[in-house]
């Protein structure tokens, strides 16, 4: 299996040019995601109105897998309900660690399916899921999400 399968074009693109990579002054929810072992440290901001996520942004220093996952997440989750975002976190986890994902879920994941390459790299799965854990921690009102 080649290294390009992990670092697919979409991953490299999002890492080079992360979307919504900024702090959010009017965030209603925020949390910090730490993966001390890898040196990943990100902050995720959300503006939520009722059940609807209006906007997501993030900042931080992290591996390309984490950066891409976070960047894709900010695009994908905006305008979802919080329940839908939580569901997508589960679908992504299944994609990266579980059995086959149904095609419908894969379609919903869109760009995020490009992270599938980490399946072959157990040590990197946490890198891909960290932004999502952080998003869920923010929704739950937790200050820090840790993969340890």
């Amino acid at each position, binding site marked *: 299996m*080649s*290294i390009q399968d*992990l*670092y697919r074009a979409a991953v*490299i693109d999002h*890492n*080079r040019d992360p979307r919504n990579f900024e702090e959010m002054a009017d965030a209603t929810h925020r949390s910090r995601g730490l993966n*001390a*072992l*890898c*040196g*990943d*440290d990100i902050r995720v901001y959300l503006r939520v109105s009722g059940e609807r996520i209006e906007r997501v942004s993030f900042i931080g*220093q*992290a*591996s*390309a*897998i984490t*950066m891409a996952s976070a960047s894709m997440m900010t695009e994908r989750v905006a305008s979802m309900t919080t329940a839908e975002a939580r569901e997508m976190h589960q679908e992504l986890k299944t994609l990266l660690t579980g059995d086959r994902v149904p095609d419908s879920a894969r379609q919903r994941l869109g760009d995020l399916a490009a992270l599938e390459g980490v399946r072959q*790299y157990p040590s*990197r799965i946490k*890198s891909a899921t960290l932004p999502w854990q952080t998003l869920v921690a923010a929704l739950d009102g937790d200050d820090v999400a840790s993969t340890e």
Partner: protein
Amino acid sequence: MSQPQIMPADNRLDVARLRRDFPALSRKVHGKPLVYFDNAATAQRPRAMIEATRRYYEEYNANIHRGVHTLAEEATEAYESARASIRRLMNISDPGELIFLRGVTEAVNLVSQAYVRPRVGPGDQILISHMEHHSNIVPWQLIREQTGAELVVAPINQRGELIWEEFERLLNPRVKLVGMVHISNALGTVNPIKRVVQAAHALDIPVLVDGAQAMPHMPVDVQDLGCDFYCVSGQKMFGPTGAGVLYGRREILETMQPYHGGGEMIKHVTFEETIYNDLPARFEAGTPNIAGGIGLGATAEYLMSIGMDRIEAYERELLEYATEAVSAIPGFRIIGTAENKAGVISFTLEGVHPHDLGTIIDHEGVAIRTGHHCAMPVMQFFGVPATARASLAFYNTREEVDHFVEAVQRARKMLL
């Protein structure tokens, strides 16, 4: 014992031949020859060590210091002869001063609990440096919690060196122990241990040295250093995992209470009282890692047959070569540029996270460590969440350095 093949006429290491003593070095990773640059995490093992361990299990497997049967006597003799080998390597004259245990972590915990804890209280201080491994930080934080003693940290400069004047200023009669790493695993800095010991002893302060990274790279003579405790991890010096030693000066060890209670460390036990054993058995409770001790002894013999001074000289040249070679890589920043430095290149690469780099160059067969190297305060000092680290050993070559540099260049092109 299989003898390593060395000693070409010009007294330089015949690295090509030495490499054949290490079976793992000939394997491939992702179809490429392995370039093992993660020696500071754990070193590869020579056949001499592997064989010694195998022989114990296959030929005279028995418990030590107990049975009267042949196997038990052979095992005991092999274990004690391993102790003698390690003593020669470190110049420890008294067999009671070498305690077998699992490694540096256990050694520091033993000293902190059995020596320091009963002797300190509020107002006392433990002095360490900013470049310690977590194994020489956390045990002292436990002591702080248990006794109220203060943990004081001697600062380092931007090159990653101990600031001598600051260290000297922090030495005072309230300091009950100085704990210092000999060579920093995260930076490669070689600390001036002899000078540290002299300065501390002038105030009657004992010194513990974390020698995990020094043992595989340079001659270590504990009597010359003059330190009171010297902690060793076998697996960092080409020996087995879970086998290490603590050197302690007899006059100090004799004043210490046991650390663990159990078999082996006793002379006589009734329910009313126990008479503890003599040194070193007093600190070796329970059946030890017999195979590990024997394997570590074989490793010590192997290293002495090569010569630690020659290893040190070779590695110094290799580090110079590597430091020069990586300067061709754009955005390559070396973390830790001490004047006196061992074969460690800790670095960041602009725009490339260490973890991605580690994963990508693994596909080129190159094994490096990425992360905080169990020295998070060092990372905080240099303002980086993590570094990549190439750590060398005497079996590494200039060709491998070149291969590493090419692999890093390719990773840059891929991600940037």
